[in-house]
């Protein structure tokens, strides 16, 4: 990857003093992981000077010598990855090392120049931006840059594959070099969203140090902190709290990267999730359920609400993902609960397509936004597992109402709310399925809207409330 800085300040070659690198030489530096940095000047005229920083990453060394936990995000573990070519946390490390004095605002020979705004143009050869052009502009424009963006296609031979997430980014502004370097230093890892080293406490310090003077006023400061710290909720919170002491964080800021940004963006405005949980709790309370199953409990948001209510004497959260259950245990702080509290709640690793003795005999089961994650042919097994073998007295099933999707501007027409959704039903589809299930397994079912009930398209979430038929009713 190549990072060039050009100035038309006169004499332009003063850039060499600022960067502490002689324009007539090509210098090389050793970086961590066997990577190398080279600084040279493609142009060094009195009216224009360009300094180039080229970073060569050793792809084999990067995989073999990597320390720290194995990332689930994967690409760093592969030899086939874009790391050698894109601006990433490697680049920031290189900038901090090679342009250390400039980044720290030191210049032995021309101290006055440090504080002088200069006409600057910086080009980063390849910047990954999964958030597209929008994200790039959101990050750099508030800092006063004029942006020139060139997007690269994935493969010219397969135009149908479309565009790559890579841009050649040129930033233009009249500003201090130190500021430009600091902006690039912080924002490159933010764009890349992946770090080659483990994110720890000292990263918070770095973020605050290089963000000094601009990050606090940046409109996207929350997103920047979160992404810079690789979505480590507590670290991001620390950083933000120290940036803006008075600002308290909303629950939304705890969102982890495991959740699909699309669903998050689509449904957040409504805080639909909370309304869903509210509706489920209301039903559970009204039917007087005490022993409750949350089937597909995920990270345990509903469980947290259930635990707070003493009505529920036994709460069992079930999920198919072992990892997610660990997150749930952490979020519920199971370890720190009092024995009385702890006894009320159990987390079980289980599946809704296998019969499970442990789940039989409960007052109620909640199945919130779960069925749409099952392939339609597997629904038959799900139905028998839940309504025949688990057989709770009350079952609450919620699922998206696909009719409502047109009300979301950000959701492209015809697409679903989440990448893993196997289907999204209209109200008629859901109700016909639910009535069939009720009929076959001896339940009654009624339907409730969740979220704003639109006259035309209904509510965003639909809920089916199943109640087991008593002997007499049969």
């Amino acid at each position, binding site marked *: 990857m190549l990072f060039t800085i050009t100035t038309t300040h006169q004499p332009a070659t003063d850039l060499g003093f600022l960067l502490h690198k002689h324009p007539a030489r*090509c210098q090389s530096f050793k970086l961590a992981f066997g990577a190398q940095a080279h600084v040279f000047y493609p142009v060094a005229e009195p009216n224009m000077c360009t300094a180039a920083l080229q970073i060569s990453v050793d792809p084999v060394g990067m995989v073999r010598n990597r320390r720290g936990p194995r990332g689930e995000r994967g690409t760093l573990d592969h030899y086939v990855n874009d790391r050698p070519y894109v601006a990433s946390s490697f680049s920031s490390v290189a900038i901090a090392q090679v342009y250390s004095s400039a980044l720290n605002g030191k210049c032995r020979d021309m101290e006055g120049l440090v504080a002088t705004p200069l006409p600057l143009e910086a080009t980063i050869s390849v910047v990954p931006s999964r958030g597209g052009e929008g994200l790039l502009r959101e990050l750099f424009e508030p800092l006063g840059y004029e942006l020139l963006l060139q997007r690269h296609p994935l493969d010219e031979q397969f135009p149908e594959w479309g565009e790559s997430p890579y841009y050649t980014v040129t930033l233009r502004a009249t500003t201090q070099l130190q500021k430009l370097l600091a902006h690039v230093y912080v924002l490159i890892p933010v764009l890349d969203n992946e770090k080659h080293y483990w994110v720890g406490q000292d990263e918070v310090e770095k973020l605050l140090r290089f963000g000094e003077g601009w990050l606090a006023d940046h409109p996207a400061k929350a997103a920047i902190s979160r992404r810079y710290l690789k979505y480590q909720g507590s670290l991001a919170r620390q950083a933000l709290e120290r940036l803006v002491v008075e600002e308290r964080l909303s629950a939304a800021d705890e969102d982890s990267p495991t959740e699909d940004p699309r669903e998050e963006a689509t449904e957040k405005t409504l805080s639909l999730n909370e309304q869903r949980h509210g509706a489920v709790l209301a039903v559970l309370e009204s039917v007087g359920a005490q022993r409750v199953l949350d089937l597909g409990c995920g990270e345990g948001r509903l469980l947290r609400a259930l635990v707070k209510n003493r009505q529920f004497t036994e709460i069992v959260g079930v999920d198919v993902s072992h990892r997610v259950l660990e997150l749930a245990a952490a979020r519920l702080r199971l370890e720190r609960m009092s024995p009385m509290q702890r006894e009320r709640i159990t987390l079980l690793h289980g599946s809704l397509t296998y019969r499970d003795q442990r789940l039989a005999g409960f007052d109620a089961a909640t199945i919130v936004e779960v069925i749409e994650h099952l392939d339609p042919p597997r629904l038959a097994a799900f139905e028998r597992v839940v309504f025949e073998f688990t057989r709770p007295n009350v079952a609450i099933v919620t699922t998206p109402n696909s009719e409502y999707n047109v009300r979301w501007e950000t959701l492209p027409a015809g697409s679903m709310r989440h990448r893993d959704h196997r289907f999204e039903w209209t109200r008629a589809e859901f109700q016909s399925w639910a009535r069939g299930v009720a009929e076959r397994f001896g339940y009654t079912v009624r339907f409730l809207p969740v979220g704003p009930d639109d006259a035309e398209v209904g509510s965003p979430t639909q809920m089916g409330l199943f109640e087991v038929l008593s002997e007499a009713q049969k």
Partner: protein
Amino acid sequence: MNLTIPELSLVVLIGPSGAGKSTFAREHFLPTEVLSSDYCRGLISDDENDQTVSTEAFEVLRYIAAKRLEKGRLTVIDATNVRAEDRQGFVALAREYHCLPVALVFNLPEKLCQERNAARPDRDFGAHVIRSQRSALRRGTRGRQGLKREGFRYVYTFTTPEDVDAAVIERQPLWNNKKHERGPFDIIGDVHGCFDELTALLAELGYEEVDGGVWQHPAGRKLIFVGDLVDRGPQTPECLQLVMQCVKAETALCVPGNHDVKFMRAMWGKNVKQTHGLAESIEQIRVYELHYRAFGRIAADFIDSLVSHYVLDDGKLVVAHAGMKEAYQGRGSGKVREFALYGETTGETDEFGLPVRHNWAAEYRGNAMVVYGHTPVPEAEWLNRTINIDTGCVFGGKLTALRYPELEIVSVPAAKTYCEPARPFLPEDVAPSTLSAQQAHDDVLDIADVTGKRIVSTRLRANITIRAENAAAALEVMSRFAADPRWLIYLPPTMSPCETSTQPEYLEYPTEAFGYFRSAGVGRVICQEKHMGSRAVVIVCKDADAARARFGVTTGEAGIIYTRTGRRFFDDEQLEAELLDRLRGALMAGFWSAFNTDWACLDCELMPWSAKAQALLKEQYAALGAAGRASLAASANALQQAQKRGIDTGLLLDETAHKQAQLDSFTDAYRQYCWPVANIDDLKLAPFHLLATEGAVHIDRDHAWHMQTLATICGHGAPLLHATRTLEVDLSDAASEQRAVDWWLEMTRAGSEGMVVKPRDFVARGKRGLVQPAIKCRGREYLRIIYGPEYDMPDNLERLRARRLSGKRSLALREFALGIEGLERFVRREPLRRVHECAFGVLAMESEPVDPRL
């Protein structure tokens, strides 16, 4: 004195301290069979004489005893046990595990006990202790009946040291233990006095009547009757007489049925209700006795002598009248006998006033096959290795026999309906289900059958352990992504590459693959071109009816194509159906009859790679190419400018140009395996194993047969079906090997991924057991896709050579054995959970962390 005790019993030693119990136990039992309370005290408190931990010590002792009895192990309790309340718990424990409690009483002179204790430095309690223990013993065990009343079935008492010394323990097999009888057997369902049908069936089975009314088989087969010989039918006495004669002549075994037992009680003059056909039996006996004096009493004594159930053929076969659950097999207790005669009821009654039976067979997970009768069913059907062969002859059904070990069902129809059943057993208004009992039962699998640490026994590689955390990972993948488990009869194993080559410029080279097989003792191998697509398992059925009948799939599909993780290959159902149609066309009518099947399972590669791996290609491969091109071009440009200025940039420009060339090669490498798929004509399917058809897993055929058979099929299905190029190699002939190396070089230069080398035989064994079923050897250019564009720079190559294969190879063998095991179980028509266990196991293994580049 010979002391006879049942082979499975709970032996309770009774006697005061110093009576010599522990010494006796040491002499007559295995050290592990003896559980001593003193030892348990020591386990807890480091002091065998610490009486303050007695409660805890006995908890531990009981816990271990329970585990042993559960596993069917004789257990000896070495404690004083002098008080009735001490013994009570052990009698209850024996009952709980359906084994017999035995009491060995050491009622020796007090003086002797005192002397012995005095000689032991650790027994410093006073003389009164033994005195009080002896008096407690005498009080509790007065007379032999004393202990029998407590529930002990065998009581032996020693009163002198000579008695103790002379004792010899004789372990007696249980009456129901006939493990040494290995058959072959013909097991006959409920006869209920249907003598004509019985003799017809025996004749059909090849039995002949010899002198004295004994039926015997020329090949020495043996009959086993599941009981209910009597009542309802026209010739109860004749049936009894036949069976009694055969049992006496040892050409038959018989277990009692509930009707037989009630009949017996009636013959003994007990007051029983003469219902359910008993009145008819009594009348028939009265007439029969006109010629055969006291036949009723004789028959009753015969029934009394019958054993509730039999465990036969090394424990592989169990026969009982109403079935036998696993925990009861080979045990003896009142409960076991009850179960054998009546089965288990839920306590409810149905609309006909009959008790509702608990479906123990649905929960059965045992390894032994259980053959039983009792409840009439229209057809004898397997369910979880159990089969009910009472097909209601007396109700107008048929009399059925199961031949063992052939598992063939032979029936003769009833001549007439002798009795109307209270509950119609051939319901007329219900359409017969198209699914078998097993398939209907298998509709839902139980989580307890897949999770936790599991051990799967396979024919190819004995026991394979699935770790709990791997099973947990597999549960998620299975639940979220996999197709209906009924289709997943096989998941393919992973494949290891050859050892790293020492040739310059090559990471993999055929020499190492050949070397591996040669040193494993394999003389001939077959090389197959490796296609770069995605692994696809194809199950193709003759039609939707065949799919329903054999796989129990009711969606109307006639086959499936799934990936190596069990996920449906296509989202587009129509495309899948079309592809299966084409394949069916290529198989042609001859295939179904030649293999006597209406389904087939094939292991294939489906191309292009881009059809399935689109996301991977775009997010990883094309992305790398795009980023690399932009980045390297910018660097090259800047470096050229600097060089023009006369700056010495050393080797940087050359290096960048070289990287650009390597990146181009990388892009070329993946591009070859990509082409747009608009419809089915853009796909290519290359089958390489014809894994299984009805009744056969074709691993007894070598790979040459597989490739030939499939080549013919591909010939009829071109261009969609793509025959794979192969080359056979004689590993003892250097020239033959060289030809294969040249073949590989030529193919890989032309862009092929490489080749797979397999032993000619599908399953090859060497000195160290199973040999790898396949080793891959990938081409130089292809490996760029795996190790990155610049992998073959000398410095990189050197570092990449260090790679460990042992983990991958062990995994490949285990997965291979599991995959084949699943197919064999499916072909044997085992319950789905047994088939699923194997596919689940392969998926679980795949969650092991192994270098993904291997």
